[in-house]
């Protein structure tokens, strides 16, 4: 069965304008699906109403995991599995283990966070890009509204777009098989 989704797409050509437009369009009761921009605009996610990301928490947990792994590895190998006296030091000479512990914390944080970032955003090698307008990776800013999830009529939303300075308003259908 085919389910067609109809989106109304407002195209803007200025970063400040699109930020103001999002606030304005939202005020008139439109439920915004997502805004696509060529570069990050500060405060845009908040204006749309996206919740704050929890990535930093994930990053912290991955870092802690890395630290724990290397702490366990160094203490176990040097202190228990095959203890060797080196330079008259203790078997578990913790200060000596700080550099690898630190490096592993960083390594796990970076990789764990970045792969979490990929997965939560549906980014993966070879993934299809769901683009509403190819110009959003160049110089246009696009506000997409899912018509199926809005009580306002198409005409009313179009008007809201135009009033907030959209240079174009297009309809985009996404066909799902």
């Amino acid at each position: 069965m085919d389910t067609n989704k109809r989106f109304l797409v407002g195209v803007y050509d200025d970063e400040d304008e699109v930020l103001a437009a999002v606030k304005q369009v939202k005020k008139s009761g439109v439920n915004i699906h997502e805004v696509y921009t060529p570069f990050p605009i500060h405060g845009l996610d908040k204006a749309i109403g996206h919740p704050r990301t929890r990535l930093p928490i994930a990053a912290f947990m991955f870092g802690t995991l890395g630290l724990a792994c290397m702490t366990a590895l160094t203490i176990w190998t040097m202190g228990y599995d095959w203890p060797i006296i080196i330079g008259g030091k203790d078997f578990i000479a913790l200060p000596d283990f700080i550099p690898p512990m630190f490096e592993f914390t960083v390594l796990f944080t970076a990789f764990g966070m970045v792969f979490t970032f990929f997965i939560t955003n549906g980014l993966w090698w070879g993934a299809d890009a769901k683009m509403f307008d190819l110009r959003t990776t160049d110089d246009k800013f696009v506000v997409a509204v899912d018509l199926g999830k809005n009580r306002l009529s198409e005409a009313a939303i179009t008007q809201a777009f135009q009033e907030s300075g959209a240079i174009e308003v297009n309809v985009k259908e996404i066909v799902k098989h």
Partner: protein
Amino acid sequence: MSHVSALVRPPLVTGGKSYHDITEDISRQVEGKPTRQWWIVFLISVVTLLYGTACVFYTWWEGLGVWGLNKTVGWAWDITNFVWWVGIGHAGTLISAILLLFRQKWRTSVNRSAEAMTIFAVICAASFILMHAGRTWLAYWAIPIPNTYGSLWVNFNSPLVWDVFAISTYFSVSLVFWYVGLLPDLATIRDRATSKVSKFAYGFFAMGWNGGAKTWARYEYVSLILAGISTPLVLSVHTIVSFDFATSVIPGWHTTIFPPYFVAGAIFSGFAMVNNLLLIIRYTFKLEDYITIEHIETMNKIITVTGSIVGIAYLTEFFVAWYSGVEYEFYAFFNRATGPYWWAYWAMMTCNVITPQLFWVRRIRRSLAATFVLSVIVNIGMWFERFVIIVTSLHRDYLPSSWAMFSPTIFDISDYIFSFGLFFTAFLLFAKFLPVVNMAEVKAVLKGVSSDYPYKKKVSAAPSERIVRPSFNKDSE
């Protein structure tokens, strides 16, 4: 939201570029056919690489006996080259991480190529680590893996093992940082691509990036946290490299000043290399509007600062060697300056301490030719610094009967040439196939830094919406 920059700040993007102009200017070299200059330089690099590879294989085949090492001087060009390349790598992370934390907008047009330089420089450095191991195929012994020798583990007390972790973490984290920053630009190229091959290739690596606000918000956090962890990482890497020497008992190496002094030297040489590469890129790709004199001048200022730190470190080291009253320590330093390797010492002093001071003169700091020449000189000096530290500390060891000199063989030299072939081949491929300037980041700061911003509208925020206390990642508000 406003895009206010202080009036005293010179523009960082000139020529009244629009967002679309940026896309066009930067994508041009990716989409077009390589120029003749590119082919010529590329072919030279590939030939150099092939020659170098043959010599490296010969080194592996025959063993380290083909180098000029002897029983007194057991480390020479190999570790000199290693430390030199790692040092060069530091500038990329400094630009992408530390300058991001400090909100330096000028980093946006130089960070991409500086990070690429970091990655290739670290690969070159790693190649010397593998080479100097002699039996390169056993290099995995440095990794703590269960083994058949009675599960004897690596020695975690050893700075050489720390170095394995530091360099590999540094390389992989830099690579990830660089790649995440590339995603939006790969998507730009993908959406402009006309041929099937490039649409597929750039699309594959762009990972389906579509620039949604949610993605961007997370992207900013990822950049910020990567910058936050890369900053101590980059400082730790050269600190640990310096530990390779500083934790030993060799007079001349056993000094506590090494970590800060190595880090400053690394940034010093790295910025010099960035300067050289950017000047070439700027010229061949006609990116004068993005890599302006201001960028070059800013980097020259950093070179002056770090060069002065290095100079102070040389003098401090010498003073402490004398003041400590340790005869052996002082002899190591006295021998450096006046012994048989005096020429290396004074080459180091001249290139690192004296000539960079010319950058105090504004005319020189802003001259492209002078910048290029002085940057090359800095890197010659920094190579000599490592040579001086390593070879002069070793060549007159505890027994005068075993005092020796080091003279490089053709394979010492060729294996060094190999790294240049590797570096420039990789860098040229990068410059051809990937955008050398981070388009998305330049666009993001364009309104604040452009000389003549062409867009008509500037919507000022209502007073109630102005952010009175900016939070830590709100850049331009």
